[in-house]
């Protein structure tokens, strides 16, 4: 599993393992704002002047996400004209996240979202956010949790998340394991945060 910034996936070719053909380019990266699981991608047709594709690519149809391509098993994952995959049928409610203002639970402005960190692998999901505080040159990373709310304008961090801010991606990657991730929370009955 690797950590990548979601924006680095934009523009990657979608390549079929069965045919060796590139069938589309990634347009939007869509994840679930609550569970933080990757929902899928909307697609552009290939070619500089080509428009967008009607059908999105569901995360479940993705075989692998690499540095150079999003791999799918068969061409039908993007060419099928069937129903839109679950979670991607209502993109009207999906909001852009980059540039959102980051607020702590106690109401202080922590900066703005400059990136969403995605863990690729069998169950790709957004594991955290990269923040840029006003007046700071470097950026910070904070792990995602179910208690975060993102509206398209603001990202509100729960009080406990502030303690998990890291100022380098490597330290962040090591720390995700010790932080109650959204996935673990989902498996908890009441989703309470474990205190350390």
């Amino acid at each position: 599993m690797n950590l990548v910034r979601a924006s680095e996936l934009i523009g990657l070719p979608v390549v079929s393992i069965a045919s060796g053909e590139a069938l589309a380019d990634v347009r939007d990266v869509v994840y679930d704002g609550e569970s933080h699981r990757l929902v899928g991608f909307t697609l552009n047709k290939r070619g500089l002047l080509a428009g967008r594709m009607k059908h999105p690519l569901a995360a479940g149809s993705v075989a692998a996400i690499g540095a150079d391509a999003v791999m799918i098993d068969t061409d039908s994952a993007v060419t099928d004209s069937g129903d839109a995959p679950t979670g991607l049928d209502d993109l009207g409610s999906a909001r852009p996240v980059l540039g959102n203002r980051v607020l702590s639970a106690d109401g202080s402005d922590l900066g703005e979202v400059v990136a969403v960190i995605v863990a690729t692998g069998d169950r790709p999901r957004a594991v955290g956010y990269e923040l840029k505080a006003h007046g700071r040159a470097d950026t910070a990373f904070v792990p995602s949790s179910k208690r975060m709310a993102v509206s398209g304008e603001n990202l509100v961090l729960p009080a406990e998340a502030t303690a998990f801010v890291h100022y380098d991606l490597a330290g962040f990657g090591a720390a995700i394991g010790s932080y109650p991730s959204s996935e673990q929370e989902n498996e908890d009955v009441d989703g309470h945060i474990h205190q350390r």
Partner: protein
Amino acid sequence: MSALWWLVLLAIVILVVVAVGGLLAIRARRSGSVLAARPSDRSDR
């Protein structure tokens, strides 16, 4: 220079502006973003 030449020059400038604008518009149409979806969209208002 005659007025005709100025008209031709103006036409060329307009064409170039339209072409560049069109290309930029197409590029903007293709540019994607990172979106948070809310399948359970009910309590956010």
